[in-house]
């Protein structure tokens, strides 16, 4: 599949888990990139867009909330679809993310196949 995916998480374990899920969902390994925080993710997206972002919230430097706020203000990133992969459960905070364009949320803990299914759903919507 040609879709470009950016995995944003400060945990190398979660990045490796998400990479595996993306590959199982049919992604091309060459089209999977990773970032360790929101600022790194924005920089990478502005260099080269991705179609999909899998985004953690709790990260150093720039967290997922701030990333989504910045992304929403940048017209060059309007077509990038963002899905949260997070421990966050606060309905107000999640509603705010939805208002800013986040389309899906997978709450941790999740089973590995749930992450694969999320990526497949996101690919289907591209």
């Amino acid at each position, binding site marked *: 599949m040609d879709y470009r995916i950016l995995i944003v998480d400060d945990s190398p*374990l*979660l990045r*490796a888990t998400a990479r595996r899920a993306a590959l199982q969902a049919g992604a091309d390994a060459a089209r999977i990139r990773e970032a360790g925080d929101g600022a790194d993710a924005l920089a990478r997206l502005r260099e080269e867009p991705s179609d999909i972002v899998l985004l953690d919230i709790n990260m150093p430097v720039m967290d997922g909330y701030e990333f989504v706020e910045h992304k929403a203000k940048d017209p060059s990133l309007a077509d990038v679809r963002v899905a949260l992969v997070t*421990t966050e459960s606060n309905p107000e905070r999640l509603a705010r993310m939805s208002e800013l364009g986040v389309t899906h949320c997978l709450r*941790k*803990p*999740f089973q*590995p196949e749930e992450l694969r299914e999320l990526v497949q759903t996101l690919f289907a919507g591209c």
Partner: protein
Amino acid sequence: MSATADAALRQIAVDVLEQMAFVFVDDAEAPFDELLGGAAASAALTVEGAASEELTVSATEGLVREVASGMTGCEPEEVDVSTFARAVVAELANVFGGEWALQRSGGGARGKVGLPRELTIDEAADRAVRAAEAGAVLALESELGAVVVTLAAA
């Protein structure tokens, strides 16, 4: 901490390890201080809710291999422990903390989980001693390793 809270924390750890990494655990036979002596890494974070609590997770190399293998799909012997030990304990602390915050808020989801920070084994042992006096300490073992989880007022 109450027996009910102890049991809730234990169930969170058991369920998360099974759900996310297919790792099945039970109460460890060895005492927690002995298991901490063999830990590959430890992490702590703060859970803010009605009260501020600190949760720590320490894992042996065997459990690191099992968790990383279960989540990433590689074989346990292929896991780079030098990279994944800190990542495993940090992520377990993150997910345990999120579930604890949710439960403590009665499902109202008003709690907040801080960023995990690395602990030395001595720091983890100190926290375990304090938690054993006025908090909760879990020692769980899996097929290949063990994990120690502590929770106490921050």
